């Protein structure tokens, strides 16, 4: 009997995912992405330890437009994982389980992540402007 063509639940092709579900999988994806970010940071520190030339090589990529774009994406991933992680910690302590609350805290986590990302880049631009 062929079992591989049986529909899986939830039917991901036709089922409109609720915001809470999207945030749940995004927590995982952002966590894995942040691992890549951590790798890049270790690369930068290791290059700095090796000397100015090695550092310039890595820093050149980070400072290039694609590096800055990725850094921006990493900062949003970081603050999203950060805010949603605090939401998870609240659940672990037994708070906020009913559906209305999980939806509201999802919106709050997204808003706070966007706010923190914006604040961070205002700090970056302000410091560079001042320097």
């Amino acid at each position: 009997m062929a079992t591989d063509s049986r529909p899986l639940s939830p039917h991901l092709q036709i089922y409109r995912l609720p915001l809470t579900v999207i945030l749940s999988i995004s927590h995982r994806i952002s966590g894995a992405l942040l691992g890549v970010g951590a790798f890049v940071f270790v690369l930068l520190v290791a290059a700095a330890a090796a000397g100015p030339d090695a550092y310039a090589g890595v820093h050149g990529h980070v400072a290039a437009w694609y590096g800055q774009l990725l850094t921006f994406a990493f900062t949003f991933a970081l603050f999203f994982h950060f805010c949603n992680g605090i939401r998870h910690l609240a659940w672990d302590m037994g708070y906020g389980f009913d559906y209305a609350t999980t939806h509201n805290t999802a919106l709050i986590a997204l808003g706070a992540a966007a706010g923190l990302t914006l604040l961070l880049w205002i700090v970056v631009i302000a410091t560079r402007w001042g320097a």
Partner: protein
Amino acid sequence: MMALRTPLRAALGLGAAKAGFSHWWLQRVTSVALIPLMLWFAFSVASFGDMRYVAFVGWVQAPLVTVLLMLMLVTLFYHLQLGLRVIIEDYVHVEWMKLVGILTMNFICVFLSVLGVVAVLKIALGAGA
């Protein structure tokens, strides 16, 4: 057959290996520790603007930065390894691939955290730069 075994016997033989809780708990402990560490890290990097060599090395050499960076790297990679382990366990269903995947991932995480800590120490204790 099972009816001949007491429920206690079944629980003792097939129950949890008693180590599952520590994974769950350490994930929470590291995430709580990472709340102040990551806030500090993100805004500390953001606020020194110029990321060129001298500025970067000077930043790492500040005693508080040296300490916090090492704490952050160790905590972060431990937390990362716990999270990636669950991802591998959830999506890789071939036993040997799961085992090789988790071991490889663990080794890479340990390597990167040690590399990061040694690099930070080398910069912090370096006489030059």
